[in-house]
């Protein structure tokens, strides 16, 4: 039976259900056991499953991820947590050089089914070191999935699918969505495809490619623009690596225009790759240059409210971008 719950409750429910279903699933990270996590994403798990399966780790991201990798080699399906994406630096070697390459460098002899939950994103006054997006640090590396769901429904279904997936996965949870994104979510476990983008809104005039918190901002902007006669097709990427090129290209072939919206800084954000893909595969279908509305190329994200507002993409900035593209 479905009921309306928040994004964070959907994540918490997915963790509870997967841990109940499969005794190989265990979690570890900072403050997530007895404390239930700084955002309470892991609330109740320690009380239900105990320290054996819900481990408060030392304050050291490298060993959090490496311990998960090692445990996966002996049959576990660990779900380590990185408290804030900004703190992931110490774990970059374990993630990129170990987990992502382990299958490859052992020719399939080893596999590494870990799901790394990472809290990311700005717009909550977190400032520098509590707001950053760094999805593209990882989307660049073959061998690790990078997910960034935007709805409570997808959060639950994609997290369950990720835990059951044999590949290492980075599961980015936007903190702004934790309590603002709500949707009808079935009580029972289910999975959502990790290979497909979702068309959130059909439209004929332009395609808007986005993901994460920006997906909700873009949807609001698209509704406003519809009143002005511009029907945008909103494609929520959901999975940033590997990208669902088919859905992206098919949508742009239909609409002939493309706007890319992301919160991440502009240079070498995922938009650069999306633009290159469309240039390679849909050049003849384009009636206008591909345009981007993104975070500016400044250290993400400055703290003072006016500075954060300057950084964050909002509805007005998206609408301005859509106006510009529609008028080209």
């Amino acid at each position, binding site marked *: 039976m479905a009921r309306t719950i928040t994004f964070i409750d959907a994540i918490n429910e997915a963790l509870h259900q997967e841990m109940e279903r499969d005794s190989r699933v265990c979690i570890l990270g900072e403050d997530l056991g007895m404390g239930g996590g700084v955002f309470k994403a892991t609330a109740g798990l320690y009380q239900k499953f105990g320290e054996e399966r819900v481990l408060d780790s030392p304050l050291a991201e490298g060993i959090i991820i*490496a311990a998960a990798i090692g445990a996966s080699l002996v049959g576990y399906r660990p779900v380590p947590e990185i408290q804030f994406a900004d703190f992931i630096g110490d774990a970059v070697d374990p993630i990129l050089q170990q987990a992502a390459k382990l299958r490859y460098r052992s020719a399939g*002899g080893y596999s590494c089914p870990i799901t790394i939950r990472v809290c990311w994103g700005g717009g909550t006054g977190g400032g520098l070191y509590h707001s950053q997006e760094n999805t593209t640090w990882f989307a660049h590396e073959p061998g690790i999935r990078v997910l960034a769901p935007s709805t409570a429904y997808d959060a639950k279904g994609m997290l369950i699918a990720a835990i059951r*997936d044999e590949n290492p996965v980075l599961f980015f949870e936007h903190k702004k969505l934790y309590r603002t994104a709500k949707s009808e979510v079935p009580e029972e476990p289910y999975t959502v495809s990790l290979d497909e983008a979702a068309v959130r809104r059909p439209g004929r005039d332009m395609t808007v490619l986005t993901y994460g918190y920006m997906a909700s901002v873009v949807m609001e902007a698209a509704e406003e623009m519809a009143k002005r006669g511009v029907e945008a097709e909103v494609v929520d990427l959901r999975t940033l690596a590997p990208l669902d090129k088919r859905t992206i290209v098919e949508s742009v072939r239909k609409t002939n225009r493309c706007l890319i919206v992301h919160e991440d800084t502009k240079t070498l954000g995922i938009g650069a790759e999306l633009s290159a893909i469309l240039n390679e595969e849909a050049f003849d279908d384009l009636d206008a240059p591909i345009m981007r509305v993104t975070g500016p190329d400044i250290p993400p994200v400055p703290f003072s409210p006016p500075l954060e507002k300057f950084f964050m993409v909002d509805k007005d900035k998206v609408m301005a971008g859509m106006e510009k593209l529609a008028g080209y």
Partner: protein
Amino acid sequence: MATKVNRATAVREAPASRHSPELLLGLYRMMVKCRMCDEKARILFKQGKYAGNFYSNVGQEGGEVGGAFSLRKDDWVAPSHRDWTSCIVKGAPLKACFAQLYGKTDSPDRGKSTPAHMGYPELHIITPASTIAAQLMIGTGVAWGLKRQGKDSVVVSYCGDGATSIGWFHEALNFAGVHKLPMLYVVQNNLWAESVPLRLQTALTDLSDRAKGHGITGVSVDGNDILAVYEAATKAIARARAGQGPTVLECKTYRWYGHSEIDPAKYRMPEELAEWKKKDPIPRFEKYLADRKLLNDQIKKQVRDEITHEIDQAVEFAENSPYPAPEEALEHIWA
């Protein structure tokens, strides 16, 4: 009269070993095998038989063999790039080891990684990477999993002196200490981290002191004394199996050759190398065995002949093994 003769004989004879002849000769054979395979690997590289690079372990066989010789099949090894021979100690077939050097399809990774990065999943040898101390962290994670499963298997990891400086070494030791994990960290202190001498690496004299800061056991031994290493490692492994926690075992030794085969190691004084060659762990153990009448020239020759034959077969196998098809580069990225 008879008493006098006996006394004289007793003075000349070395005290009996605590270990069985089978074990002693097993350790000896394995050290010679590692030395001969390593030297062969160097020659093959210099002959241009394979690309990439090779990181010789010659001179360090005491730690390499002693550290893992008593492991069971269900135990794990986490090697570094300098521990190709640790695969031999754990029981990997020489054919696979040499195919690894050549990057052929009969190597465990089908040519994906480099000559130095040999793993062997069936024998629980973790495929190494070049990023320093990563193998210690992954190995520690394996030990965490094994302990959670209630198994009494252990993990032996290898690293050099240089790896004790990086943060990940300490994250691993700290985690292993907190959870009393079944880990043995073998630190091959060969005095040089590539071209950097130990005095610029650390203010410590004994690298086993690194363990103190993490509340775990640290032991330093003469790494060129195979029995000292074997006994310390076996004790540490028994402690680990019994749930008494991890150990850092520093083996004081010396790397005979350069960091890799393209490094002539001109930064070292020839006198230092000459001094350490006098402490070669193999002749030293040969004397120990000969003193106990367990080894003579005939047995030595027999051991070397057998290993030479096995190496020749392995090299021939590796040379005849096919290269992967170019498209294989696309395989094994995703499940």
